[in-house]
């Protein structure tokens, strides 16, 4: 040892204690170890035992200490004392706050429950908040799915009983070719990075299909820089190539999909386009054993893909014949789509051929016997090792639902869903649309709603319409404008409430939804709607209650603020009844618990709802004697029973903690979770690990675990009959008819087999004037603003240039440091630009929600987020440009109502350098002051 080398303690104490809970820095919900020193949070790392992240943790999670201690944390309930939008508040007591809310809400509940619109943003407790809204009796409840990714979720559920992320994942351990579509750097965060690491380690390949080559696409072996909004066309061209070459898994299609189900092909029949059904209502196939009709699920039946059936003068052909007719058409030939997609025809063919090569030449087999629902025993599991993942990039378009459907059809014809090497569902999924509830909207003053708000419509009879055809919901979900709006339309609530269409409301109650900033299209317009007054000088939206943990832009626009806790100060359950965290090989749920107690006068929002629900005397929230049923959210988590034996948490049920999935209430359940590291995990039996929808081994286990109460095997719906029912109505069939102005659109968009059509905005916008596509992505190191602007993370992403491809960069003569005016049909912004070569030649993009409004988030008014950061939201309207018919056409997918963020078209021109990004909205007064100038955050000094 050198004389100069100091003595060093290489085994210092790490912490006094490790408390294990669940991260909330994004929607990934990883397990975290919170190291405590002197009762304070000292360091956060990933929990190695946790099924989601297995020890790793992203930049956001590791910066949780800065979120938890942020200067922007709200400190006490607030009552607005200035004009809306001014930020003038007075701190009040919880009693005063809850009394105020009760005084507003009680008369509404007793007279017109629909006058409350309760929307909960990035809520991770929707099974609870939905239960609360149901007890209140308003039909107006949803979370943020409508402006996020409902196309993905709904297309997946209707097609195959689940989509990606919370529903399913690639078989990272076996896949040989992974194709990633769209902007997906945040959903789901760590598991995708871990999966990419795994496939790279094994030497498997990855293809990125994305206009932007960053993040995951930067490490993809091949990059397909597709034109935004054309993914569906590209996918259907690959379907064309594969079908034309017979590179489809016939055995899989025949047995496990409705490719073999017979369809009525008589245009004169009321049943045209519907399945041939037996007297029990079961869709019919031709059994290859007998050549005769048989129900799809009959014992020993071998469905025939080719057999047709003619009876009473009507021809019935299997779905697969219709698919051949459609997709073999030259309309879907690579040459026909290449220019539009921005991908050469030969490249499309090569990609299709590569999928075929890997799926069929590199098939894998696992020696695991299993039994299917027809009683057939299989001695092994055959895998097609190609896998896919997609998220908002393909779904946030007005053709997103059909595009997501197209992707699932591609997966299915390759035989690569729920097989080794393909895509795998995560229990409690798969679950077909028919096993989900239908939407409910029947209002009875003073009483609960007739059932859960959100669900899956099976036909026109399930729409939430009054007898006069007007919408029951404020967001017009489940109407002819968007018949399958499974997550509601949060982005339309304020706009519709302001317009009084379909009706006016009294109170807007929101949680974790930054609607006056990045969570709304048309940010400036929405802030005006929130502050507009009527001829009497009263606010058009009379009352606004908002709950947030931080001083977000939305706080200033509310009349009453319920300050929430940070994620380390609260109870939560990551429930199977909600958006679960399971893995393909295991069912899991988890909790958050207060690893530190709040040092402010704040309360967990869900606990506040328990109190408010009791004050309002709502069913489910009061005991028989009228007293408060759940003292707080922890009490609800432990004691609430949803169905016999099933509660919010599936683990450690029964008094002794022995119950798995089903069981009685366990008063020590939360402590059992804490002792187990904050989560519960039960592995899927090995012979049930694949083929879950078709496997009796899985179905029996699923019933045992309480996912559902009777086995419900099903087959994948290449042809979605409920879509046909809506389409048929548009053709004039049936009692419940759409309004005339929507007929033509419904005929096109409600196609029961996937189709592609151009973005709806393209029909309303001059594409010569606005030729450029504009997108956003979320950075991996920063989520959107449901937390604060984090002191560490803002040093990584403190402002956001508009990234411009080489062609546009050169055409405008841009140089480093330049600014540009970017305009859409709706508005314009002036923002800094930066060059990016690895980008689709006709696309610009920026990071989402880095831009902040002055005065928010306890930031200095000169913060780069406010001076150089910006939102694209100013360019996007919640309505399409007027068509001159006086109607309000939503900028949404016509099937699900998903906000079509990525349909945006712009033009771009060089601008003089302004003082700051435009539009610069005036500063709002901060209710929490400003953060400290210097940090040296060491707890254990």
């Amino acid at each position, binding site marked *: 040892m050198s004389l100069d080398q100091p003595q060093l303690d290489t085994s*210092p104490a790490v912490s006094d204690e490790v408390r294990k809970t669940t991260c909330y820095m994004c929607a990934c919900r990883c397990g975290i170890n919170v190291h405590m020193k002197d009762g304070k949070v000292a360091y956060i790392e990933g929990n190695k035992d946790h099924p989601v992240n297995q020890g790793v943790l992203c*930049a956001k999670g590791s910066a949780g200490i800065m979120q938890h201690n942020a200067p922007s944390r709200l400190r006490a309930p607030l009552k607005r004392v200035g004009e809306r939008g001014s930020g003038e508040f007075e701190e009040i007591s919880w009693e005063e706050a809850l009394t105020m809310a009760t005084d507003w809400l009680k008369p509404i509940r007793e007279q017109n429950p629909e006058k409350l619109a309760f929307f909960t943003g990035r809520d991770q407790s929707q099974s609870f908040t939905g239960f609360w809204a149901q007890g209140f009796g308003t039909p107006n409840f949803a979370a943020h799915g409508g402006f996020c990714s409902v196309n993905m979720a709904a297309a997946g559920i209707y097609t195959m009983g689940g989509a990606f992320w919370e529903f399913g994942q690639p078989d990272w351990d076996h896949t040989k070719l992974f194709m990633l579509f769209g902007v997906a750097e945040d959903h789901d965060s760590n598991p995708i990075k871990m999966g990419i690491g795994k496939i790279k380690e094994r030497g498997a390949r990855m293809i990125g299909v994305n206009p932007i080559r960053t993040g995951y696409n930067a*490490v993809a072996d091949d990059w397909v820089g597709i034109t935004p909004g054309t993914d569906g066309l590209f996918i259907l061209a690959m379907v064309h190539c594969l079908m034309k070459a017979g590179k489809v898994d016939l055995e899989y299609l025949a047995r496990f999909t409705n490719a073999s189900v017979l369809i009525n092909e008589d245009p004169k029949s009321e049943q045209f386009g519907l399945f041939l059904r037996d007297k029990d209502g079961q869709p019919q196939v031709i059994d290859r054993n007998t050549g005769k009709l048989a129900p799809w699920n009959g014992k020993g039946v071998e469905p025939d893909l080719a057999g047709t059936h003619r009876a009473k003068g009507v021809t019935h052909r299997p779905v697969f014949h219709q698919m051949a007719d459609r997709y073999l058409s030259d309309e879907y030939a690579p040459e026909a789509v290449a220019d539009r997609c921005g991908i050469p025809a030969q490249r499309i*063919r090569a990609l299709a051929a590569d999928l075929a090569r890997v799926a069929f030449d590199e098939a894998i087999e696992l020696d695991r016997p299993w039994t299917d629902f027809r009683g057939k025993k299989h001695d092994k599991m055959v895998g097609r090792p190609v896998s896919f993942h997609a998220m908002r990039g393909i779904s946030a378009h007005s053709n997103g639902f059909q595009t997501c459907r197209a992707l699932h059809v591609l997966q299915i014809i390759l035989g690569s869903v729920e097989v080794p090497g393909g895509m795998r569902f995560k229990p409690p999924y798969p679950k077909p649309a028919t096993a989900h509830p239908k939407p409910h909207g029947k209002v009875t003053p003073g009483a609960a709603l007739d059932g859960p708000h959100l669900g899956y419509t099976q036909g026109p009879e399930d729409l939430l319409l009054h007898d006069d055809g007007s919408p029951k919901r404020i967001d017009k979900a489940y109407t002819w404008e968007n018949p399958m709006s499974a997550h509601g339309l949060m982005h339309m609530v304020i706009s519709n409430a302001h317009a009084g269409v379909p009706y006016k409301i009294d109170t807007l109650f929101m949680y974790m939804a930054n609607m006056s900033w990045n969570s709304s299209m048309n940010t400036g317009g929405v802030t005006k709607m929130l502050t507009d007054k009527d001829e009497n000088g009263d606010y058009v939206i009379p009352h606004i209650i908002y709950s947030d943990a931080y001083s977000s832009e939305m706080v200033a626009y509310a009349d009453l603020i319920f300050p929430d806790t940070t994620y380390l100060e609260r109870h939560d359950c990551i429930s199977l009844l909600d958006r679960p965290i399971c893995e393909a090989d295991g069912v899991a749920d988890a909790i958050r618990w207060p690893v530190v107690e709040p040092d402010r006068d704040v309360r967990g929002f869900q606990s506040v709802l328990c109190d408010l629900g009791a004050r309002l005397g709502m069913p489910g929230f009061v005991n028989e004697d009228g007293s408060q049923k759940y003292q707080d959210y922890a009490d609800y988590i432990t004691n609430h029973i949803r169905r016999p034996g099933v509660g919010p948490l599936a683990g450690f049920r029964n008094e002794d903690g022995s119950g798995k999935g089903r069981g009685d209430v366990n008063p020590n359940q939360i402590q059992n979770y804490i002792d187990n590291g904050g989560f519960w995990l039960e592995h899927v039996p090995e012979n049930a690990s694949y083929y879950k929808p078709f496997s009796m081994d899985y179905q029996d286990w699923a019933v045992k675990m309480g996912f559902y109460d009777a086995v419900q095997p099903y087959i994948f719906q290449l042809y979605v009959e409920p879509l046909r029912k809506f389409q048929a109505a548009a053709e004039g069939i049936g009692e419940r008819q759409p309004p005339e102005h929507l007929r033509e659109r419904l005929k096109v968009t409600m196609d029961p087999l996937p189709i592609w059509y151009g973005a709806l905005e393209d029909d309303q916008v001059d594409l010569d004037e606005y030729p450029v596509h504009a997108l956003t992505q979320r950075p991996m190191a920063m989520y959107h603003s449901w937390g604060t602007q984090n002191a560490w993370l803002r040093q990584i992403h403190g402002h956001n240039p508009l990234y411009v491809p080489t062609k546009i960069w050169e055409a405008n003569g841009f140089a480093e440091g330049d600014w540009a005016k970017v305009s859409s049909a709706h508005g314009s912004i002036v923002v800094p630009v930066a060059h990016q070569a690895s*980008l689709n030649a006709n696309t610009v993009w920026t990071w989402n929600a880095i831009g902040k409004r002055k005065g928010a988030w306890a930031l200095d008014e000169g913060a780069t987020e406010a001076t150089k950061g910006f939102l694209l939201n100013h360019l996007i309207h919640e309505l399409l440009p007027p068509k001159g018919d006086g109607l309000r056409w939503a900028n949404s997918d016509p099937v699900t109502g998903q906000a079509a963020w990525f349909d945006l078209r712009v033009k771009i021109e060089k601008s003089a350098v302004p003082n700051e990004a435009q539009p610069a909205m005036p500063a709002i007064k901060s209710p929490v002051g400003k953060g400290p100038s210097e*940090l040296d955050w060491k707890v254990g000094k």
Partner: protein
Amino acid sequence: MTQLPPLSAKKLGLVIDLDTCVGCHACVVSCKGWNTENYGAPLSDQQAYGANPSGTFLNRVHSFEVQPEQGEAQLIHFPKSCLHCEDAPCVTVCPTGASYKRTEDGIVLVNESDCIGCGLCAWACPYGARELDAKEGVMKKCTLCVDRIYNENLPEEDRQPACVRTCPAGARHFGDLGDENSDVSQLVAERGGFDLMPEQGTKPVNKYLPPRPKDEMPEFDVLAPYLEPVAQDGKGFVGWLDKALSAMPGGAK
């Protein structure tokens, strides 16, 4: 001036896989968290909520584009921290002996109580891997988590640098690059691991694994047999289907 000790047999360091790094900054922030709470002075932040925030980081990820002569541009994510050089100019330049290279494992450290914050070492480092903490006035650098890797208060599996433990994509590897049989040395040998800026003569211990070639999917000609048409339209397809089905097991009707 400070002398370098004789070379240690054990050369602890990192191997960073540029083929796998997705540029997520997990390592950056995990490092910030651990080293703010642990070894020496905390890593401070100035204007933390102000106009021009800046702070001390021991590890940063840089991203840059590469435009090949043919084909699409590529984006490379490049994490950078101290490379624990064998011939470390930051050590020899130190006027007080505060900078030193450990004899037992080759880790380069700063003894903060002897550091006068003169900044010579940061100037001497060709990699820009050292940062002077603006609040404490001492030089900060990657310690290879010397307070983790031997720490008996941590479970054995956690005795690795914070950045390696947290990396979601598994792009960071830690081990003894002085042992040619170690996992990290094997990885370097298999994947053609390289030194950063070898012309500087610093002999870095850390190694980088190069990105695999990109956009090299075979042209369609090679793959064409996989798409040999069986039919030209729906009708032809149904004809093919009949034949294909009858050829399948139990298919003869």
